[in-house]
C-alpha cells in the first residue's frame, strides 16, 4: 500500500506558530493550556465507542474470546491492544508502534484493569479481550484521544455471565443473565504537551503544531495522582522541573476526563434501560452537532443586506436575500442558503408559462408559495402544486401530509 507524502509545513507557517506560542496564542484561538471540545458516542454493542477531540476522531471496539491464559500468569485474563492507523496514510509503522506502546504501557503496565476477574477456569480458560483502536482522523494528540476511547470502551463493555458446570463452561446470553461490566481499578489518561523554543509548551496540539514542534512530552496519569507513564522525546530543553509541572497539569486533566467518561457511560447505560430510546451510532450520524457528523452547522449572523449590483440582467429580490441565512460548516466552508428542492420537472412548466407570459420569472413564482425555505411542509406544498399543474408528471404522486423522512429523501440533504 503506497503511503502519501507527509505534507511539508511551509516555514512561514512554522514561524507563525512559534511566534504565536510566545504570546500564549494559537491558530484556533485557544490559549496554551486549553483543550479542544471532547465528545464521546457509543454504538449498539457494549464496548464500542467513538471519541472526537476537536477534529481528531478515534473509534474503539472491544470484543472477547475464550482462550488459554499465559503460562506465567495462569489465573489472569488477557488484554490485546491493537492500533490501526491505516486511515491516515501518512504515518509510518514506527508511529503506529509508538502509539501502540504508549497505550500498552499506560493501560497494561499500570494494571488499571483487574484481569483476575476475567478468569474462568484457572490455567485453562480465560477471557481474552481484543481491543481494536481505529484512528479515523488524525488532527494531532492521538495518544490522548486513543486512551480516552480505550477507557470509555472498557468502562462501557459488558461480558456475558459464565457458569462452570463439571468442566463445561456455559456462557449465558445477555437475555438469560445480565452481562457483567469489567472491573476497572483506576482510569489512566494520557495528556500530550508539545514544546516550542525551550520550555514554552502547549497542551492538546493539533496536527500542524505537532509537525513543527521541537519536542513532546506525554504523561499518563490518574486521579489518585499516580503517574502511569511518561514519554519524552525531541530537542527541547526539558528539565526535571518542567516534567513535574506538566505532571500536575496532567493530573488535573485526568480528573476532568475521569468524571466526564464516567458520566457519559452512565448516561448511555441509562438510555439503554429506557424503552424506545435511540442508542447506537445511527442517531448520532443524523445529528449535526454530534461526535460522528462532520458537518457542524452554525448560523452566521448577518448585519445588513444591501442591494449592490450593476448588472440589470441579474434579478435578486431583496426580500429573498434578507431571508437567506448563512451557515458555517467548517473552518473554511460557508454556505449561503441551504439549497432548494429539485425542480427538474419545473422547466417544462416554465416553458409553457413562458409561451403564455414572457415576463414571468420562475423564482418569483416560488416565493408566492414559500416564505421560509427551511420549512419542510412548504416544500411539500410546492411539489403538490407542481404535480397538479403539469399533466406530464402524473406519476409523481406526492401527498400533502408527507412524513418528515420522505421529505428528507426528496430534498437535498438538510442538516437539522
Amino acid at each position, binding site marked *: 500500500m503506497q503511503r502519501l507524502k507527509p505534507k511539508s509545513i511551509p516555514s512561514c507557517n512554522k514561524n507563525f506558530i512559534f511566534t504565536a506560542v510566545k504570546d500564549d496564542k494559537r491558530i484556533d484561538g485557544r490559549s496554551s493550556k486549553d483543550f479542544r471540545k471532547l465528545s464521546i458516542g457509543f454504538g449498539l454493542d457494549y464496548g464500542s465507542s467513538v471519541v472526537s477531540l476537536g477534529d481528531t476522531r478515534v473509534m474503539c471496539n472491544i470484543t472477547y474470546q475464550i482462550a488459554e491464559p499465559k503460562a506465567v500468569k495462569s489465573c489472569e485474563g488477557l488484554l490485546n491492544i491493537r492500533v490501526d492507523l491505516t486511515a491516515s496514510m501518512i504515518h509510518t*509503522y*514506527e508511529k503506529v*508502534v*509508538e502509539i*501502540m*506502546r504508549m497505550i500498552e*504501557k499506560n493501560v497494561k*503496565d*499500570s*494494571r488499571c484493569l483487574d484481569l483476575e476477574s476475567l478468569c474462568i477456569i484457572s490455567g485453562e480458560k480465560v477471557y481474552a479481550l481484543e481491543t481494536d483502536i481505529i484512528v479515523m482522523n488524525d488532527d494531532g494528540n492521538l495518544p490522548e484521544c486513543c486512551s480516552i476511547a480505550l477507557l470509555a470502551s472498557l468502562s462501557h463493555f459488558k461480558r456475558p455471565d459464565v457458569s462452570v458446570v463439571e468442566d463445561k463452561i456455559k456462557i449465558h446470553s445477555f437475555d438469560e443473565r445480565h452481562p457483567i461490566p469489567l472491573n476497572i481499578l483506576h482510569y*489512566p489518561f494520557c495528556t500530550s504537551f508539545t514544546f516550542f523554543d525551550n520550555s514554552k509548551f502547549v497542551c492538546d496540539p493539533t496536527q500542524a503544531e505537532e509537525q513543527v514542534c521541537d*519536542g513532546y512530552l506525554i504523561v499518563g*496519569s*490518574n486521579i*489518585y*495522582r*499516580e*503517574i*502511569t*507513564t*511518561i*514519554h*519524552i*522525546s*525531541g*530537542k527541547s*530543553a*526539558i*528539565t*526535571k522541573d518542567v*516534567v*513535574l509541572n506538566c*505532571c*500536575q497539569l496532567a*493530573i488535573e486533566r485526568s480528573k476532568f476526563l475521569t468524571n466526564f467518561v464516567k458520566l457519559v457511560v452512565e448516561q448511555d447505560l441509562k438510555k439503554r434501560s429506557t424503552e424506545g430510546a435511540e442508542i447506537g451510532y445511527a442517531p448520532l450520524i443524523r445529528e449535526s452537532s454530534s461526535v460522528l457528523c462532520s458537518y457542524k452547522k452554525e448560523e452566521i449572523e448577518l448585519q445588513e443586506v444591501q442591494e449592490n449590483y450593476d448588472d440589470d440582467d441579474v434579478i435578486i429580490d431583496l426580500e429573498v436575500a434578507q431571508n437567506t441565512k448563512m451557515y458555517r460548516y467548517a473552518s473554511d466552508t460557508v454556505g449561503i442558503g441551504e439549497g432548494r428542492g429539485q425542480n427538474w420537472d419545473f422547466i417544462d412548466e416554465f416553458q409553457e408559462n413562458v409561451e403564455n407570459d414572457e415576463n414571468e420569472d420562475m423564482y418569483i413564482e416560488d416565493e408566492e408559495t414559500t416564505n421560509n425555505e427551511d420549512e419542510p411542509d412548504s416544500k411539500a406544498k410546492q411539489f403538490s402544486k407542481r404535480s397538479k399543474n403539469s399533466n406530464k408528471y402524473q406519476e409523481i404522486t406526492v401527498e400533502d401530509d408527507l412524513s418528515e423522512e420522505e421529505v428528507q429523501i426528496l430534498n437535498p440533504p438538510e442538516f437539522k
Partner: protein
Amino acid sequence: MESRILLESTSVKTPFRIDGRKPHEVRSLTCRLGVFQQADGSSYVKLGNTQVLATVYGPHDTRGKSNPEKSIINCKFRLSTFSKSTRRNLHRDIRSIEISNNLTQVFDSAILTELYPHSQIDIYLEVVQSDGSDYAACINAASLAIIDAGIPIKDVVCACSAGFIDNQPITDINAVEESSNGTPILTIGMLPKDKQILSMESSGGIHLDNLNDVMDAAIEGCKSVLFIMKQTILNHIQELKD
C-alpha cells in the same frame, strides 16, 4: 512466586537489594572505545551483567531520500537471541522497534546534524547479554561509539534507570527487579551539562510525590555513569596520541 524479597533491611538505615547493592549504587561500568576497525566508530559497554556493542557508520551517502537540511539518523536496536535466559527469535518485535525509535530521536537531538546535509548516519546496537537497564546501556554505548567516530555531538549523552520498591527509590535496575510485578521503572537519557532530558520512559505507576525522588535517583546515576565514560574517552584519546 511473587514474594521475592527485593529489598532486605538488616538495619533501618541501609536496606540491601537482591544483588547486595545499596539503593543508590550503580553497577560496575566498564567501557571500551574502538572495538571494531571496519566501523567508523564502535564501543562496548558492560553495565553489571548487561553487555552492549555499538557501531556507527557515517555520515555516508543515502540510498534514496535525503534531507537537504540535515543528516538522517538511522538507529537499529537488536536483542541477540542468546541475550536472555530463554532463547528468543523475535526479529522485529514491538519492543525492539520502540527502543530503536526512541534511540533515533535521542541522537537526532544530540548530534549536530546540520553539518552533514544529504547524508545518513547509521547506529547499530546489539545487546549481547541482557540483565536489566538495556535501554540505558544502549544510550551510553551509542554515545561512546558516536564520539569514537568523530561525529560532532552536543555533549556526552548518558543514561540511567531508576525504580521504586518498598517506598525506596533505587538506581540502576537489574533484570530481577525489572521483571517483578508492580515495580515502576523509569529510564532517563540526558545531556548532563544543561541537565536537559532527551528521553524519558517510564512504566508502572509512580505517585507524583515520589516522582521527584525517583527522577533524582536516575539523574544521580547518570552523573556516576558520565564520570566513568569521560575517563574512558580521555584515556582512549591519550593512548592514540601516543
